């Protein structure tokens, strides 16, 4: 069913359109002068200035691995993030923790953990699926590199971005 929209009846000076034009021009000129004289600032000087302070808590930036308060790498190389990753950006090579290691009872850790940041779509499924709370999406959003190889974050880089995270569930701690 068609709706018939009633056109407003314009007065004769409104039909000239010129007054409206001048009112608009006044606003534009006002902004122009305010910016020119430095009274108002609208341009952010990226990358000298960053957007970081304005990022919401739920912002999803680069995924990274974390260590806990004991310095233990939380990842046990279960490869669930590799499995869930929609663009297949994650590659993990697991290994056994040697018996003389302090955390030998955890048995398994990643030998290599790579996230290809060219492929990553920042969906956060890796963080959601992780049963060990080992991978988190950080607020880093400016991931740049001059080569494809540089855009692949290896284990070392991932722990560097991730840092230490405390207060997580620690199921590997001694009970007694």
């Amino acid at each position, binding site marked *: 069913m068609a709706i018939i929209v009633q056109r407003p009846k314009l007065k004769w000076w409104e039909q000239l359109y010129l007054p409206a034009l001048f009112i608009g021009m006044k606003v534009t000129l006002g902004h122009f002068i305010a910016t020119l004289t430095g009274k108002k600032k609208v341009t952010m000087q990226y990358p000298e200035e960053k957007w970081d302070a304005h990022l919401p808590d739920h912002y999803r930036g680069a995924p990274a691995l974390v260590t806990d308060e004991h310095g233990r790498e939380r990842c*046990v*190389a*279960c*490869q*669930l993030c*590799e*499995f869930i990753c929609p663009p297949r950006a994650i590659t993990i090579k*697991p*290994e*056994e923790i040697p*018996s003389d290691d302090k955390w*030998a*009872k*955890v*048995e*398994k850790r990643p030998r290599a953990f790579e996230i290809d940041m060219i492929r990553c779509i920042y969906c956060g499924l890796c963080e959601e699926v992780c*049963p*060990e709370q080992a991978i988190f999406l950080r607020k880093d959003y400016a991931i740049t590199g001059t080569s494809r190889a540089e855009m692949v974050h290896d284990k070392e880089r991932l722990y560097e971005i991730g840092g230490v995270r405390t207060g997580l569930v620690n199921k590997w701690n001694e*009970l007694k």
Partner: protein
Amino acid sequence: MSEVKPDLVDVQIDGVWHQFPKGTRLIEACRQVGAEVPHYCYHPKLTSPGNCRMCLVETGMPPRPMPGAEPPQPDESGHLPISWIPRPVIACANTVAPNMGVRTTGPITEECRKGVMEFLLANHPLDCPICDQAGECTLQEYSVEHGKGESRFREKKVKKPKNVDVGPRVRLDDERCVMCSRCIRFTDEIADDPVLGFTDRGSHTVLTVYPGRELANNYSLNTVDICPVGALTSNDFRFQMRVWFMRETNTIDVNCATGCNVTVYSRQNKIYRVVPRQNNDVNSDWMPDSHRLNFHWIDSDARLTDPMVKENGKHRVATWSEALAKTAEKLAPLSGSEIAVIASARMTNEELFLVNRLVKQIGAGHVEIVPRMGEADGYLISADRNPNTNGVKLVLGLANPGSGLDRVKSGIEEGRIKAVLCLQENLVEDGGFSPELLGKLDFLLATYPLANPTTGLADVVLPGACWAEKSGTMINVTGRLQRLNKAVDGPGQTLEPWEIVRDLIQALGGGNGIYSVTEIFKQLAAEVAAFKGLSWGQIGDLGLPLIETGETIPALEREKQRKAAGLIVG
């Protein structure tokens, strides 16, 4: 009662009447009609101790009338009414009875399963993220299907030994064990090496290896396969790859003439593990450790990746057409009697069929294979370590394979043989040809997956695919025709041996027109009498008996006896 054959009994499963032979276990009867009963300890190839209690089902029999009361009357279908027994029974150790009723669902069985799952999970460490069994773990599967979803257990879990080396190839985690005793029964009943057992009682029961002994027999990794949880894991496969990533390819083992049926697990063109696949006419459910672990060389650095030709005593990488042209050029001035073809009993029937054509084409005076005889182990390893000796006899037409090898050697020694085409064999290390002897040849062509002393001496080296990289058929020690399926691609320029032989035939002026293994099989079926009327699809995953050899597989014979004695389901 309806009219049935005397050895069949009527059983009602989940409300539907079926007929089963007398003596069928309830669990098998239910499985046959699609009502899978969950279980841990039951395994058709082992005795049934009935200790996991997971397979409890509700059963019923016709009511027994009180003295003087009317006996129950059969309904219009001829079956007596069923009076359900309030106590459930285990489906794995009980057999069907006439007019029996079984309920695999319903409040009693579901409550039982829930209860058993809760007990099993009370002390379970829940370390699925680091457990290799995750993804193929029945504890995980049944937790989803029958578990409570959350634990009511607030006490401290019982601590048990973890990460225990019970043998050179097997690792034990006692906290994950569900006490099904499959491994204990396997080592006792099948491997005749009873080193495993339970100690302590109640929730402190642990699986242990006898003091001073270890689980070191050549069938130890089968315990890992039958372990329904992650208690026993393979040292070789441990933490290598999660099972859900891998692709499964059904093929056969080529380490001996038994030809155990296997599944090859691979991901991104790399093989991670080889496990036995059930075939009750070949290997039952088992395979020897030595055979299943013999795959690591497939992606080793020693693999040949490109065709090579020798120039001024040095090999250089060449193209396929260049290498084949050089072969043709070198063979052209020689007469047939000066050429020997050494094929391999590790080649498939299709490859041997083409070798036969090649031999005819060049009129080669000698054709032989390299025999590999070892000792049979009385279980599954056959004395003949070549997987397709029967195929050599049948397709290549050698009555006594390997017997003419000395004639080839003396022929080279006396200068009567000037060129050898060595196909998929290692003449120096396995054939007993000395490097000096091979040095006397004018021309040596060698194809092999790996670089070896023979390929080092060869004038033309061609990279041939290994067993996991090719398709074809082989005939095992009992005369069973079985199929190999390609699991991974060969590295670099590797070609399947049949392609190499085909290209050789073509380079030497012969016809072509073959583009797949199945095409060769068609021609094979048309030309070789024993294969008459067979098709590639007919062979299937389990193979089919082709010829009578009179040979048997000892482990299978014992299994048949145990089945006949009613010890196992089989």
